């Protein structure tokens, strides 16, 4: 969740969706995102919606799971009342913040609410993010019993000075340990890495890549560090205490990671995500890029159902207040017209390895593909077969590619 909420239309107090949202809903997969807005400490680069205090304006962290479960119940009610076809959830994702800062029982309770209200589709994917230092074997076992199938560890880096700049507190030695425990209890494992941290060299990054691969996870995410306005890191860079990340170096780091991951048998399926195979992709992550429906639970969470996007109030106290009143926590929303939906389809679709169907593009967009092939951003062989798939340099330029495809 980003620093500021977007500007949009006001959302109604009952949260009911416009009629347009229901159209075709039976054909779209449905997922659920549950936000946990708490962390033990706030990392300097982070502008996500998270809080480090146990108690905020009279709202206790221990009450949060109950409030989230209330919104899960509200979601079922709103969808039903809005005429959206009832669908079991295909994917569930707990993100934060640090979901594992809550007791495993809280996460289990929230997940149970999802199952009770919506049901699980066969083979449903249920993931939680976790900090290497906030879980142990028992905790992971409890999650597995509660129905979780996947855990995504925030490893970020294996290099102490990089972790220190990021203000991550975990001991890198702990990562192989928690990964092994997760596998033992039967969870799929992903590790998340960050590259391009100020002071991080290509050699540092290589070390992180090697150590991540050495744990043999099923899935790896690697995100370049983005300096978000309003963060401590942004202030440190402005005042000259910390060097600004170098985009060329970040590009070199991406190239190195992609090369190493491919060599180790991990294929990219989205710009920042690699997996050992089709079944180990994060289906929840993909649902963002493929226009699926999902409901985001919790303060500041974003949702999308049938061309309607909305977002919740940001502060946990404001959120708790809404839930106590039985009101929708939505702060604002927007209904996308067909032009905007098409623009989003391209913007999101170019990022995945399955690619965009070139025939689905407007004539101007189809013409632009030739230039993109010439510049080496689009894979020529795939394009000849009718798929727009980005090359490695093209993935690094994905936003520029989108502008060129939609520049008419």
């Amino acid at each position, binding site marked *: 969740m980003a620093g500021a909420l977007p500007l949009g239309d006001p959302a109604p107090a009952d949260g009911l969706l416009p009629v347009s949202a229901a159209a075709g809903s039976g054909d779209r997969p449905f997922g659920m995102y549950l936000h946990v807005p708490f962390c033990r400490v706030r990392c300097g680069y982070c502008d996500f919606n998270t809080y480090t205090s146990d108690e905020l304006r009279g709202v206790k962290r221990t009450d949060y799971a109950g409030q989230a479960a209330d919104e899960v119940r509200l979601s079922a009610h709103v969808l039903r009342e809005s005429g959206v076809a009832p669908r079991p959830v295909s994917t569930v994702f707990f993100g934060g913040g640090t979901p594992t800062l809550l007791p495993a029982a809280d996460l289990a309770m929230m997940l149970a609410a999802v199952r009770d209200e919506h049901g699980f589709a066969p083979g449903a994917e249920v993931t939680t993010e976790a900090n290497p230092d906030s879980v142990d074997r028992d905790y992971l076992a409890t999650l597995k019993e509660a129905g979780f199938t996947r855990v995504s560890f925030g490893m970020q880096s294996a290099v102490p000075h990089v972790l220190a700049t990021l203000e991550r507190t975990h001991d890198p030695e702990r990562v192989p340990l928690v990964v092994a425990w997760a596998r033992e209890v039967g969870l799929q494992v992903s590790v998340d890495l960050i590259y391009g941290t100020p002071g991080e060299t290509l050699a540092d990054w290589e070390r992180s890549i090697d150590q991540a691969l050495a744990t043999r996870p099923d899935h790896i995410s690697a995100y370049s560090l983005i300096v978000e306005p309003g963060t401590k890191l942004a202030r440190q860079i402005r005042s000259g205490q910390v060097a600004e990340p170098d985009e060329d170096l970040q590009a070199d780091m991406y190239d190195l990671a992609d090369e190493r991951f491919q060599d180790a048998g991990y294929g990219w399926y989205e710009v920042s995500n690699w997996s050992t195979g089709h079944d180990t992709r994060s289906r929840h992550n993909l649902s963002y890029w493929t226009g699926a429906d999902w409901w985001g639970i919790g303060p500041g969470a974003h949702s999308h159902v049938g061309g309607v*996007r909305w977002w919740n109030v940001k502060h946990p106290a404001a959120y708790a207040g809404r839930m106590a009143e039985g009101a929708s926590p939505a702060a604002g929303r927007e209904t996308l017209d067909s032009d905007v939906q098409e623009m989003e389809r391209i913007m999101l679709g170019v990022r995945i390895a399955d690619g965009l169907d070139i025939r689905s593009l407007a004539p101007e967009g189809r013409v632009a593909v030739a230039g993109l092939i010439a510049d080496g951003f689009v894979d020529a062989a795939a394009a000849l077969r009718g798929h727009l798939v980005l090359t490695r340099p093209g993935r690094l330029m994905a936003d520029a590619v989108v502008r060129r495809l939609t520049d008419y």
Partner: protein
Amino acid sequence: MSPKALRAQEPSATDPAFIRNFCIIAHIDHGKSTLADRMLQMTGVVSDRDMRAQYLDRMDIERERGITIKSQAVRMPWSQGADTFALNMIDTPGHVDFSYEVSRSLAACEGAILLVDAAQGIEAQTLANLYLALENDLEIIPVLNKIDLPAADPDKYAAELASLIGGDPADVLRVSGKTGMGVEDLLDRVVERIPAPKGDANAPTRAMIFDSVYDSYRGVVTYVRMIDGSLSPRERIQMMSTRSTHELLEIGVSSPEPIPSKGLGVGEVGYLITGVKDVRLSKVGDTVTTLKSPATDALPGYTDPKPMVFSGLYPIDGGDYPDLREALDKLKLSDASLNYEPETSVALGFGFRCGFLGLLHLEIITERLEREFGLDLITTAPSVIYEVRTEDKKTVTVTNPSEFPTGKIQAVSEPVVRAAILAPKDYVGTIMELCQSRRGTLLGMEYLGEDRVELRYSMPLGEIVFDFFDHLKSRTQGYASLDYEPMGEQEADLVKVDILLQGEQVDAFSAIVHREKAYAYGVLMTERLKKLIPRQQFEVPIQAAIGARIIARESIRAMRKDVLAKCYGGDITRKRKLLEKQKEGKKRMKMVGKVEVPQEAFIAALSGDTEGKEKK
């Protein structure tokens, strides 16, 4: 010596013996307008209540910059003993760009107040105007102003003035326009020292136009100094240079608001209104006569104003082009020396090539276009007039580098000016260094008083228009002043340097420079553009070339990363808005071939806003 005259002399019936015509020669900010205000107040033509600071400077820009662009004439009554005199104060532009207008204003006077700041001493432009005044046989009244300032050093500068014009330092009047101290004495001195005008009341009418102003309500208002004969309302008049005839709808004097009169007689100064809408029909320096009994000989000294400096003016928003045309058409009505024609630039789109009297004129016109007409403009680097002779003996006049012939060149000639620089003696070394680097030749050097020096150089005008004044000011902590006047042409080894972006010529950056400086210019511009143009999706070479020969090269490396790592918790809305913003930004880019260049980069590169300023 009453401060306020009891009875004013009536226009059209004033004996020339009771008329005094004078002007004030002063440098910008030496307090001319404040002194003039004080005179208006003391002679009673403006009531204390109506007094607004710098009454005579009507245009906002003039008031803000404290400089006078357009002169006006004010008639003030002043009594001495039993006699009442009509004092005509003719306001003159203080800047070198308007030296022709200055010379016409001086020709309308018999005397001049030489006004000098008692804390700063005389400046180069004032010196130039003083020479002009002496050439016109004007009686000079030396005056030190701002003597109330703590930093004033009247003894030192009185000596300086006395040594310049001859006479006793004790005769130099000391006044304060601000407090009014000494102003009455000055008005008395004007009556005593300045000769009365002479002319033949019975000869055919001749009046000299010394200013011509466009007024949106009344059309062109023409200011004249009567030499011979008389003019009266409803009479048909003729302009001797154009032979155009007009009916005098109104005739009068400014005091300082226009007051219609029964006419104007010998030696008087006043205004004429004919209903004409274009100042080109009423040219400064021209002679007005009557149709009924026209004069045979025009008054001497008339010349057409010639533009010296050329620059392209482009609207930042291409959609403003029609507005720019309209604005120029309107300005032309009030400024006979402005000329322009449409031109197109690959980099900047549609605009106008404009000719100006000098750099200040250029600056004033662009500022008026921006302020009075709400236009945002880009100005290309100023250029001068070159005469280029090709191998096949053709001569091409080049006012824009893009007109420079491409084939073999036999010779290029450029305008040369005589530049006078006045500065404290400590700066002589650094000024000489600067002038030599600008191909200047020292003509002479003279001490004015103890510590100030006048350096005279011949220098190509092209060197002066290329930020010479900025450099001069910054190297002398602002103490140096500059004046220049045309002194002909010279042949020089000049070449045209082009700047290419990915092989495409960017016309706005082409420049005609001396061969020895071509490399430096090429390096300067390629480095500057490298800093200003954002990285593209491909490598962009930036080259400087003389014809086909590349003399400098830089390159902007391709951008490798343009992607947001992730969508924060599914906040697609934010990502989409960012993309929309980027696409919006692209619309403001100018395309040079495939290269997207932000408008700001062109502006910054043209104005040298990047490292150029730091270098000084």
